């Protein structure tokens, strides 16, 4: 019995990580830069959908991993010019930051769900007024690796342009303050900068 105890501790000692083939890497930043483009439209049934037609949008985003298995950070910006049949135009240039949740499934496709907020620059025609408005963002993305550096995927983004916090113009009646609800679908290419 007296011999067993040192042998037990010896076994415990050699089983420790110091002697194991420890494969796990340290946390390492793996930024992803992406480009996308695709159609954009106001959400059907909302106020803006009575004005604007579908048009094209294009955007850029950067995604960083954080010390977490399933969560990432994303920031992005996109540009679009919404046009109507008549005179109205809306230049949209929103920028956002979002938390990204990666669905923990072992599959060739990765699924990401995003939520965030930001500010957007908007300019309307024919009034030709411009300025920043807060935006809220929700999105979904699925992509697959096409080699070591490139991922290809599609994304679906929804933006709420928040305007009802403003007071309606004074000395005016019957002005209905509206928020903007727009969505876009894009095909995208992501570049893994540190694979």
């Amino acid at each position, binding site marked *: 019995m007296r011999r067993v105890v040192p042998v037990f501790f010896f076994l415990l000692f050699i089983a420790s990580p110091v002697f194991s083939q420890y494969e796990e890497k340290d946390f390492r930043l793996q930024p992803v830069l992406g480009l996308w483009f695709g159609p954009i439209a106001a959400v059907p049934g909302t*106020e803006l959908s009575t004005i604007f037609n579908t048009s094209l949008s294009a955007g850029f985003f950067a995604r960083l991993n954080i010390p977490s298995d399933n969560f990432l950070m994303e920031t992005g910006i996109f540009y679009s010019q919404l046009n109507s049949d*008549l005179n109205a135009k*809306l230049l949209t240039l929103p920028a956002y930051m979002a938390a990204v949740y990666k669905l923990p499934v072992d599959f060739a496709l990765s699924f990401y769900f995003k939520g965030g907020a930001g500010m957007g620059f908007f300019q309307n025609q*024919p009034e030709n007024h411009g300025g920043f408005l807060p935006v809220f963002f929700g999105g979904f993305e699925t992509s697959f690796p096409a080699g070591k550096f490139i991922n290809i995927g599609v994304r679906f983004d929804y933006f709420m342009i928040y*305007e009802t916090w*403003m007071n309606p113009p004074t000395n005016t*009646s019957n002005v209905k*303050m509206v928020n903007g609800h727009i969505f876009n679908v894009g095909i995208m290419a992501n570049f893994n900068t540190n694979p």
Partner: protein
Amino acid sequence: MKKNIGAFFIFAFLFTCSKYPLLSELYNTRMQLVLKGTYESNDPYNWNTNIYLDDNLGSYSPSAISSLVAMSDVSLYIDIADVRLAVGSGKPTNTTPAEYYTTITKDRHVLCSSNTTPWKYSMLTCADQNGDQGYADFFSTGFTFPSASDVPVIPLDSKGNQRIGLDGKPATAYNELDIFFRKLTMSPAILYDTANPGGVAQTTQFDNRVVNGINLMDSGIVQFNQSDDPKTATPLMFPLNRTDLSLKIPDGNDAYVLEVRIFLKNLLMKHVLVNGSSYTTFVGPSDWKANHNGSSQMGGNLVFTARIYDPANVGSITINDAEALNTAFKSYYAAVPAGSSFNGSDIPLTASSRIVSGTGTTGTIKNLPPGDYDIYKTCDNTLLTPSGASAAGNYDGFPETAKSCTTKTTVTAGNTTTIASGSISCVCP
């Protein structure tokens, strides 16, 4: 230095939050586009019992050609494609319509004297758009045409630059207003020929249904050719337009009214088309300006005017008049801006009916922006077109005679200026 740049961006974000409700500005429309089918801008007369008869009808047989048509038997189906504004310089041939016009309506709209055909089929667009209600409004208080929410205050081109007006300077007002009729269908239309000596009703299509009548836009009748010479045929009067209006949209956020009056009510007349030995009677605007004598071409007789006012900043003029109302012909009170020439060959900026009051009449012209106005009485007691044997007592429905009542009557916002009875002496000749 780097810190300063970061701080600058944070402050830029906080302090450049938009002053304007950018989306709500696009969504809310300031313009209320009101279409009226009346000479009067308010308080129109009721419909005449019978429509007018062209002065040449009596020379044709059968005698049914010159019979009276009761207004209750008349149907109108009007399909308006859109209404547009422009600076009035004329569309250059090398530009697209979108580059020249500012379209102020979103969709076509129909006005129907009934939402069902004479055979009781429902007309879908009429029913969807409450065409019968629109028709009733069009000939009474005014039909509000759904207008676009994004009409530029000053004329802008498609790139957002200010347009150049007729005088070569940047334009600040719209001088041109165009109404694009898709159809202007009026009934009854009756064909008399050797096979049908008793007459057979003519039909046409409206809103994908068969209705009685003929469409004046495509029947070969150049009804809307606005040339003074009705024989200069092409094109059809499409659009109905005027380029001498001065429509200034008020700046700011207040709602404003764009009132467009197309004189149709109590101007309808029975005409005849002569084609060899067949005769087709139809209903159309009176040939008060360009005479119609059986030919397939007529025009220049449809007139309209348009004005803009801020409904929160208007006054009224009430006229009391010792002259008794002559019910044999129509007469109106009209107000035009002081000093502007008005001779009765066009329709005035504003007008009202005359209402019998005691031995004389009274009338109130409403929705006048503050300013000075000249008051006229307009009377339909001359037949402007060359007259043959008149079948309808020499009246054509258009009040060509303008008698000046007063000048420089001042209107202030929110008030009614009253012109006392006896202080004016404008009598229809």
